[in-house]
């Protein structure tokens, strides 16, 4: 079953991490990433630039607005695509990721359509 894990966290906290702290979190996350990849469970994963780099298009008025769509306490900062047995396993993985990457929340959303597209980046 394909799931997305959407990563929400308080941007001002994450942006306050020093490079070393950031590197430490990433190194710890990479342990889990490597395992999931080896097990063939990890699909595309991404970390978004800060919301200050975002631009939003409001479709009906064709209105372009600087900033993210939603002004929230926690921001969408990244996401994983996972091929897993179901919610139970998803939550287990999310807990493990959460130990490495504190604060905020993970939203687990089953995928309805997955188009791998071309290999970019």
């Amino acid at each position, binding site marked *: 079953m394909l799931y997305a894990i959407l990563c929400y966290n308080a941007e001002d*906290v994450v*942006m*306050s991490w020093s*490079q070393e702290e950031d590197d430490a979190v990433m190194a710890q996350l990479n342990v889990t990433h490597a395992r999931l990849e080896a097990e063939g469970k990890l699909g595309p994963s991404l970390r978004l630039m800060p*919301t*200050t780099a975002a631009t939003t298009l409001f479709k009906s008025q064709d209105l372009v607005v*600087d*900033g993210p769509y939603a002004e929230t306490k926690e921001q969408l900062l990244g996401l994983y695509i996972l091929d897993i047995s179901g919610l139970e396993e998803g939550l287990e993985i999310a807990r493990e990721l959460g130990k490495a990457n504190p604060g905020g929340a993970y939203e687990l959303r089953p995928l309805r359509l997955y188009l791998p597209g071309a290999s970019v980046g």
Partner: protein
Amino acid sequence: MTDPAWIDAALSGARPRAVGALLRYFRDLDTAEEAFQDACLRALRTWPVNGPPRDPAAWLIMVGRNAGIDGARRRAKQTVLPDEAELSDTEDAETPLAERLDGADYRDDVLRLLFICCHPDLPATQQIALALRIVSGLSVRQIARAFLVGESAMEQRITRAKAKIAASGVPFETPGPVERAERVAAVAAMIYLLFNEGYSAGGRQEDRAQLADEAIRLARLLLRLYQTEPEIMGLTALLLLQHARSAARFDTDGEIILLDDQDRSLWNTSMIGEGLALVDKAMRHRRPGPYQIQAAIAALHGRAARAEDTDWRGIVTLYEVLEQHTPSPVITLNRAVAVSKTGGPQAALDLIAPLEGRLAGYFHFHGVRGALLLQLGKEADARTAFNKAIALANTPAEAAHIRGHLDRLLQPDRTA
């Protein structure tokens, strides 16, 4: 979830918003800072046990406000006559927190906190030191080290700056649109100064990087408050694009490596990516300004995978536009460097010749002039220019860089 590093990051991330709100409640910077300190101590005790709150800033504001009020009550008892009016005023301020934390309020709070550091009576270095202390929450020791002064000297400097601010009164009225724009511009200028201090300061690499990191953090903070301001996008982009090169700017001996000679694989690609994205966003507004133009110049460097891929013609054009916006001999000097790449060293020398009078005391003028003369093979003139530059160097690294040129000039068997 509650390890010390995370709590630390949460506290410093929440600091501008929390101290800004507390300053509005207490109308006194020292009280606001003390209240925030109290709240942080409470956070360090309770967050590891109860877990961190959903909104650390809101928690700190509430706890800080209560701590500040308690402090005021204690002091009131000690000073015999409790000021009833003041206390009930403070009680009145306890309207529902959610309402108090709405977006507009929070924006003005943080802007005010940044803006009071930009008091026009304060010299630039004091503005920066104050912002680092009040907004970023760096310790006096950290700030002193970054500025290469003693801790007590820095302490005094900050105390004096605070006294000046208190004496002139903090502006608490909600600013109108014009005033707000002026404040944003003043804050942007202060952030730019802070970054330049980090960019040019001598001292240890880590201290320099810390100033630059803080400047970028403040620029992002300002941009989050004013998401649609192209100049703030430009400022943030400029800082990111410049800082992206920091690992390549010095060799292991601390000697300056010029842009052309830098190992571009050391450039920070995610910073460059973010900078380019912000330049893109800013351009859409078609309201160019000095920060945007400088960012666009930095972007052309950032886009060049190799030095020889640099779009120097584009850079010359951008410097011309920048000069129209903010005429300055330093910008002409920079344009001359770009012109030397497209039109040769003589064209560049012709361009800077009229600047001699105004830039006679400027290190880079003589450094650039020397390098151009050297390209033309005018070694004696180059040596004179380099000697002038050395005498005006601001940092040991600058002096060492020029000395490198001179040393190479003195070697009889050098290869050109």
